[in-house]
């Protein structure tokens, strides 16, 4: 009996010590999905869905448990940062898989590969957000990018999807090669080190000061491509428009969150001692992406394209949080706003997926008079859009308030002013859709609301149909209510500084 207890204690300690256990579980889930799909020859789709959900949930639970286990003994801020982002990525994968299964089944594509690529992309992001080695960073970044690329071209008969994935592949290849060139310069400057903390020691005592700027410029360009900051944002709207809608939901959160973690870690760790220079550069990029993202979004006719530009501007807001980090609060405002942004954006895309599934369109004009047809969908969409715009009672407002207040305290006056003005513009185009949904006459009444549902009367599909609606309602409620619980979130995220 004693032996068993001892063994259990040892096992607990070892598994808590093994920090990549959540990733290992995800890999096991991936292999299980592939093997079961091969054994059942693509028939048992619902089991695959359940396996991937259970894997993600188990991974999240173990991550939280490890986190709690370690907080009890020692407190390491860098690990907190990585853990928070890993948890965010797990939430993203969970919500986006549950909201996209239905779309895949309705468009008669195979589910196994879709789940495989989504889990793989989530895995890449998780490894990326806690990687401490240039090789690991590069490989996990490419893992994320290539999985996203396959997801983007998943509807391979669709020419628009083909074109989107071609653009995405070329752009992500170019951006990661820029990043890699920056890495190679860093490797040379630091005297042959690949660990991030050793690189810092290496480049402080260095004679070639100007090459560090070159390397920082390349790294900024590479990560700004992934983040879709202003001059490197060209691929975003095209890829968002061409890809299948649930995939876009996944892109808009997962790759953004992972790239954000990468950006913050790289610049917070490696280039802290000439922070003035890159603060100015990134501040400029953030300003331009806020202005241009919001102004161009006003003129868009497709909802997905509009949300692409809106996400460009949201990244601009989040950059304020990155720039305003100080020793007291760390990246608290950035992480809090990222969390709220994940919920709002996934909620919006879940609503758009549902709408697109029922009517087969994503044009803004077709949203006219949606309130008459489906009040639940309308209300969820309204809540998410208003939250994205930052209307006062919703959580987007509190997130933005905290972010801007933090930025103001850090002395980023011009950035915060630009952000305030542009959020007013953003409220205009969100309200335009909302007005259309409530007051607009339904011009095309011949598009029946449940046109695709009739042909698909099967048990698994009706269950997963619920899962899309559940995910939508969870996101809408969370993006409404998490404003009330913002204090505990801020408390958790407050101590994350490396």
């Amino acid at each position, binding site marked *: 009996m004693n032996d068993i207890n001892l063994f259990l204690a040892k096992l607990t300690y070892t598994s808590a010590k093994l920090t990549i256990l959540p990733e290992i579980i995800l890999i096991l889930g991936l292999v299980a999905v592939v093997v079961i799909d091969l054994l059942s020859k693509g028939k048992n789709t619902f089991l695959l869905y359940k396996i991937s959900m259970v894997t993600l949930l188990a991974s999240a639970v173990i991550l939280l448990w490890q986190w709690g286990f370690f907080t009890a003994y020692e407190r390491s801020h860098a690990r907190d940062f990585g853990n928070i982002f890993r948890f965010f990525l797990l939430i993203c994968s969970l919500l986006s898989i549950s909201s996209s299964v239905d779309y895949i089944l309705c468009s008669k594509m195979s589910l196994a590969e879709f789940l495989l690529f989504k889990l793989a992309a989530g895995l890449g992001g998780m490894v990326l957000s806690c990687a401490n080695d*240039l*090789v690991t960073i*590069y*490989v996990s970044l*490419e893992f994320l990018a*290539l999985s996203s*690329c*396959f997801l983007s*071209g998943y509807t*391979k*008969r669709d*020419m*628009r999807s*083909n*074109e*989107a*994935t*071609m*653009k995405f*592949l*070329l752009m992500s*290849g*170019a951006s990661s*090669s820029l990043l*890699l*060139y920056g890495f*190679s*310069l860093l*490797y*040379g400057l630091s*005297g*042959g*080190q*690949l660990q991030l903390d050793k690189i810092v020691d290496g480049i402080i005592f260095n004679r070639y000061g100007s090459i560090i700027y070159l390397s920082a410029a390349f790294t900024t360009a590479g990560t700004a491509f992934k983040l879709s900051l202003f001059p490197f944002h060209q691929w975003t*709207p*095209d890829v968002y*428009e*061409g890809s299948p809608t649930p995939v876009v939901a996944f892109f808009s959160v997962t790759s953004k969150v992972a790239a954000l973690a990468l950006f913050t870690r790289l610049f917070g760790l490696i280039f802290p001692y000439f922070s003035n220079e890159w603060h100015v550069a990134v501040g400029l990029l953030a300003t331009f992406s806020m202005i241009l993202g919001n102004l*161009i979004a006003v003129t*868009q006719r497709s909802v997905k*394209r509009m949300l692409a530009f809106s996400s460009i501007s949201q990244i601009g807001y989040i950059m304020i949080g990155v720039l305003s980090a100080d020793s007291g609060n760390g990246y608290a405002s950035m992480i809090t706003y990222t969390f709220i942004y994940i919920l709002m954006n996934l909620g919006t895309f879940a609503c758009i997926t549902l709408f697109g599934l029922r009517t087969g369109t994503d044009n803004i004009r077709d949203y006219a008079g949606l309130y008459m047809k489906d009040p639940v969908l309308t209300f969820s969409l309204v809540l998410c859009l208003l939250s994205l715009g930052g209307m006062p009672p919703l959580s987007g407002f509190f997130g933005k308030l905290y972010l801007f207040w933090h930025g103001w305290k850090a002395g980023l006056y011009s950035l915060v002013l630009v952000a305030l003005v542009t959020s007013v513009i953003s409220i205009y185009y969100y309200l335009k859709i909302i007005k259309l949904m409530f007051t607009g006459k339904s011009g095309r009444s011949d598009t029946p609301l449940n046109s695709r549902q009739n042909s698909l009367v099967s048990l698994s599909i009706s269950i997963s149909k619920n899962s899309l609606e559940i995910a939508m309602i969870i996101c809408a409620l969370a993006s409404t209510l998490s404003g009330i619980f913002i204090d505990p979130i801020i408390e958790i995220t407050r101590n994350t500084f490396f």
Partner: protein
Amino acid sequence: MFEQGLILSAYLLCVGFFGLITSRNMVRALMSLELIFNAITLNFITLSNLFDNRETGEIFTLFVIAVAAAEAATGLAIALSIHRNRRSTRIDQSNLLKW
């Protein structure tokens, strides 16, 4: 010797980017991308010759090669599916997605 290596790799990088920007064929763009990756590989190898622990740069090179192969495979798969749908792989003919 070491400067020449760096200059050669920077030159190859520029050639690769020039090819990526100007080429009208998907396959040719992918070849330019490969050229860029090879330039970076060359950079790593040249720099790793300077230091005592040479393995790190060489291992990074191995990873870059592997990832570049995966990327080329992906790109060719995409080129294939584009060719099936529209009978050409020219980039400038794909103009469905624009503002």
